[in-house]
């Protein structure tokens, strides 16, 4: 009966193939994230920590980040390595606009 049908998709509106091509290119298909999908019934009612992502935590609170022991998230990604291109361009622009006085470098 219906348990299989309830995850079935509404048929896409029929479009001529040539109209479709551009759409498809600009809007990548998201598979299971299509709007019609639902949160699915679980196959089992209960399970223990070892079958969840809690095992990644080693006892820390869920949802911290790497620095807090949860390697699924990262909360520290600032670095001081600026791409050469950006810094060169920025310096050049500054030299141009401020007549080379290097105003920004004053302390």
């Amino acid at each position, binding site marked *: 009966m219906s348990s299989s049908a309830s995850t079935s998709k509404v048929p896409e509106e029929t479009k001529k193939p040539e109209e479709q091509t551009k759409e498809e290119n600009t809007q990548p298909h998201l598979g299971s994230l299509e709007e019609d999908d639902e949160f699915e019934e679980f196959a089992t009612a209960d*399970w223990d920590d070892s079958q969840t992502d809690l095992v990644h935590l080693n006892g820390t609170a869920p949802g911290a980040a790497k620095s807090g022991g949860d390697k699924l998230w990262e909360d520290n990604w600032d670095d*001081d390595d600026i791409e050469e291109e950006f810094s060169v361009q920025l310096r050049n622009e*500054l030299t141009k606009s401020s007549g080379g006085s290097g105003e920004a470098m004053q302390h």
Partner: protein
Amino acid sequence: MTVDLSAYLVQIAEALVSENGPNLAYLLRPTSPHGKDLCKEFRNASKESIKVYCEGMIESPWDLIAMQYVLVTSCIVKKRPGEAFKEQAQLVTLFLRYFTQNSGWTLPALFSILRDLRDLAFDADFHAKYNGQKSECMEEAARVISKAFGNCMTDRTSPPGESRKWGTYYVVGLVLKCYFRVKLISLSKNILRALNAHPDLPSLSSYPRSHQVTYRYYLGMLSFLNEDYAKSEQELTVAFYHCHTGAHSNQERILTYLIPLRILRGHLPSRELMQRFPVLDELFTPFIAAIRAGDPSAYDTALEKWERRLVDLNLWLTLDNARELCIRGVFRKTWVVSEKSTRIPISMFHCSLRISGVHISQEEAECLVANMIYKGYMRGYISHEKQMVVLASTNTFPRLADRPTPYALS
């Protein structure tokens, strides 16, 4: 071996005597093998004639429940989902009469018939819509399931271990699933209000994980749609971490909303996480890469590319807000290139924005700096007269994870 009606009734009676919930669930499932047998037995029989065979043959209301069962399976076989739904709704109503007189041992059967009710409502509405007819079976399903919810929650007689209260969160999950399907999200509030009015329920964490995760998912989604992002992030985080890792598409659903919320908080998903969810990797990685690089124009390209999908998922606004993280990146780079000076002219920020593909006037750049300071992305103040940004000498760009109000909208 074929099962005729009298054998079926005996099996029900046995399940009742032995209080075997899973078996009772099996007996009431339209897809079970005996369903076909009973269908054949009563192929062209009217409701009245089936009733004659059932009535009084087993304790009430099970005679009528058995009759409804035959009717439901017949309608399904005849591909009449609308009628099948109506008969199943009556089956549930009859079942609830028995349910409220007994302890929670019947919960497996309750869950099963409610699930079938919802599935039939889905089919009925789908079928009607396909034929251009109006159909509100899902709304009706929500009403029937809400009744069952009340009958679970208000159990005052069963011993705690066998209380019908243990069905509460599963049934709430089903009601919310109905409301989400027909986009009557606002009706969910009534259910949650009723739930909060019963503080005598066992704590959520003592329920089976499948109940906890489903409930928290919907609660997280409701909070998200009500723009209570802090609460949403909290519920979805717990849902994700308690979800069975084998339930991949459910984890993916949770992360679809959790990842943007965590990005706003300055927690970026690691490669390890993204590799497990290729669909989310494809969607979110361009945004994450742009944030890491402080590259607003790459970010805008991603926003444009995914616009329709993000709008469909109600995520566009969230990701549009997270663009600020790129701007912070540009400003931080400017500060690093300026050798972390505490005094940086606005023109310098203006210029770095232009290099990064953000073409705005100096006044707008000044405004953007002011905004970033106000929102806690950077510490300092603006001397408007001197067109100079004076920056704090310590903790100039606080870690994003440390911002006190990451979800405050401008």
